[in-house]
């Protein structure tokens, strides 16, 4: 068993076009570390020095991890993690 990570179109160049990949870890941070080992470059698109990037949404199952525990959120086998770039902009 592993954790399924769903990858948005714009990041599939890191996953050879795959819409979903598997990774392991006990927390979201470990999971992203494992993702980076399998798909180098992906971590930088998800996190920066301050934590999760502001305009990337990461969900554990049906919840936004910002409302759970951010990078420290525990994850376990059978969970699904979904990454979606935020849709945002403005007049300036």
């Amino acid at each position, binding site marked *: 068993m592993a954790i399924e990570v769903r990858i948005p*179109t714009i990041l599939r160049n890191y996953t050879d076009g795959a819409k979903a990949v598997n990774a392991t870890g006990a927390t979201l941070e470990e999971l992203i570390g494992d993702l980076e080992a399998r798909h180098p470059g992906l971590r930088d698109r998800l996190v920066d020095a301050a934590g999760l990037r502001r305009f990337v949404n990461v969900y554990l199952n049906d919840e936004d991890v910002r409302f759970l525990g951010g990078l420290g959120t525990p994850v376990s086998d059978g969970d699904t993690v979904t990454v979606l770039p935020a*849709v945002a902009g*403005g007049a300036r």
Partner: protein
Amino acid sequence: MLTISRELVDKVVAHARADHPDEACGVIAGPVGSDRPERFVQMENAERSPTFYRFDSLEQLRVWREMDDRDEVPVVIYHSHTATEAYPSRTDISYASEPDAHYVLVSTAFDEPQFRSFRILDGVVTEEEVKIVEVYG
């Protein structure tokens, strides 16, 4: 070029007018590979701001999953500018994240609404023609 039905254009403009002076936003979904906008999905602007918009994250997850289940993609991603022209701003360009989408900008700043469409890829904006049709051929 964006080909879009008059009915959908009217819905986008009506949403922009209803939320004025805040920015309105949403998507028009269509079948994968069709490039044809069909299903109008009005979204919450989580920022409720006259100068910024952001899809509510949980609503976005729900809508994106629904599109996945229906083999749809966001053919159009629209939002309004309420005091400036319908052209992508620096923030619009830096956050654009759907390389295959038509980014529609509506402006409610003038007497007549502006309705324009753009491709935004790797920070480069290209305006495209909008062809409004009564029905899809």
